[in-house]
């Protein structure tokens, strides 16, 4: 490849970006109700193995397997979130790490799916399917956030007690957010399993849970787009750090440390998206002055 061709990632990297974006959003949905989960790789593992068994052992079509994965993730997420309702903050984070360790150990000792040697035979996910999944999820979250439910997520995060007093069913909202997040992680796992072709319990360890939190916090925890940007950047960085050989982990680590010290709110915060929206609006206004005047006139008539 010559020129800037090296900047275009390989097909497998493109799919990895998609999967990581969905993982980042799964963490993002949970954190948007103030629930810090560091065990999402458990849900990812369940989705990956669930969908894998569905396509390989039961010869079900891929689409059905993906839906099964989402269902498994949602169900298990609900199951986990009930005891998790009693614990909050760092206690919740630790509890989810515990769940992740238990699930990982379960798959290591579950011979039906190969135990520690792993499970293979899944195939069939293409870049376009991953891209479609990402677009669907983006649309879903975007709609969710502008709905009444999305607003109540925000209210629960800001102050649970106030939200409760206002008549919101905080239990329902927190369980729902956790289940949605778990289902998304599960979907990501199912997609991952069907293009990586081979899965093993150690693919879903503590690190696999931590990485999406990096994406979200680096990109920005306040918006959907920040989380996605973080996933894209941190998936691509290792590719471009390849000339550094083994040293890239050190550079990567120090970059995150520096980032947290100087911009803890992440690259894209709400104020950034507002600025972009404003800039876009003024651009449109400058292009179409007539329309703006008409609107202003309409507003003026409303006032008078």
């Amino acid at each position: 490849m010559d020129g800037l061709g090296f900047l275009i990632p390989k097909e497998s990297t493109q799919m990895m970006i998609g999967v990581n974006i969905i993982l980042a959003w799964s963490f993002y949905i949970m954190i948007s109700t103030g629930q810090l989960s560091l065990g999402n790789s458990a849900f990812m593992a369940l989705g990956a193995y669930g969908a894998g068994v569905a396509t390989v052992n039961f010869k079900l079509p891929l689409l059905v397997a993906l839906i099964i994965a989402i269902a498994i993730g949602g169900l298990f997420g609900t199951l986990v979130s009930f005891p998790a309702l009693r614990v909050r903050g760092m206690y919740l984070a630790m509890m989810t790490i515990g769940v992740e360790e238990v699930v990982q150990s379960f798959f290591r000792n579950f011979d039906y799916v190969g135990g520690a040697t792993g499970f293979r035979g899944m195939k069939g996910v293409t870049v376009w399917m991953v891209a479609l999944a990402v677009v669907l999820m983006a649309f879903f979250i975007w709609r969710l956030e502008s709905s009444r439910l999305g607003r109540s997520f925000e209210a629960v995060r800001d102050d649970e007690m106030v939200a409760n007093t206002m008549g919101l069913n905080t239990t329902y909202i927190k369980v729902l957010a956790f289940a949605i997040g778990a289902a998304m992680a599960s979907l990501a796992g199912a997609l991952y399993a069907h293009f990586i072709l081979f899965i093993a319990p150690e693919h879903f360890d503590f690190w696999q849970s931590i990485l999406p939190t990096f994406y979200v916090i680096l990109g920005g925890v306040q918006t959907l787009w920040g989380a996605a940007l973080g996933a894209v950047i941190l998936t691509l960085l290792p590719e471009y750090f390849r000339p550094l050989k083994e040293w890239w982990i050190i550079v990567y680590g120090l970059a995150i440390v520096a980032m947290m010290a100087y911009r803890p709110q992440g690259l894209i915060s709400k104020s950034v998206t507002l600025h972009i929206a404003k800039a876009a609006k003024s651009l449109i206004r400058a292009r179409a002055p007539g329309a703006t005047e008409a609107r202003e006139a309409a507003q003026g008539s409303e006032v008078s």
Partner: protein
Amino acid sequence: MFLQQVVNGIMLGSMYSLVAIGYTLVFGLLSLLNLAHGDVFMIGAFFGLFLLMALGLPLWAAFVGSLVLAGVLGLVVELLCFRRVKPEYHFAPALSTVALGMVIVEMTRRVWGTQPLSIPKTVEAVNFSIGGLLISSIQLLIFGIAIVLMICLELLLQRTRIGSALRAVAEHVTTAKLLGVNVSRTIIFAFFVSSALAGIAGLLLALRLGVADQNVGLSYGLKALAVMVIGGLGNVRGAMVCGIIAGVAEVLAQAYTSAAIANLAVWAILIVVLIFRPQGLFGTRLQTERA
């Protein structure tokens, strides 16, 4: 047989206690997780190994050396990940310490290679038999050092000026400030103490395993973190007791069931404790508010 396993469990547990104390000291002061702690614990063994092998120092000097070096590394962690952090971004240090831990592990791999290194036989392995229980000299050394350190820490916290400053900051930062406590110095001190303890614990674990392993931060370190939570966030005595409990539970599970279940013992305890006592086993009102 049963008693023998309990004794072995206490030996293992005392190490969990040492590391968990480090997590809990920092959490008590700042209400923030220091996730690089497990990796400081890991590198403690390599510091000790370096002093033993490359410089040919005696074992006690290696202990003092890895105490100091790990303590200094703890100061670096504080400087890079905690000093600048604003209270409203309380997830930031959790992530930057994970990243720094990653850097520490990778540095260890660059310097000492990716394979675990075996520790030279510095302690003569003599087995003592006390009432039918077999205890090796290494086990005795590990347990002795761990207990002495914990007693020292308890005295430090309860009897000295800096100890009461530490407890005051843990109770309420603003009030402590008003009473004239130098908060930033207290925090730095806490980081040094917690990392120094982790460094020694790392060397002790290496003596027990016979190797200095690059991966113990994730296995033992993460379990020690669970122990800290079981004991109640920021509760030093809770961390000590629960470390022992976790060690005994793990060794008993290993003896009577399988290694896979033993590996999960700590996590199972964590989940059960959090379901029935969300503030931890020894958690009080203070611990609930901190979360």
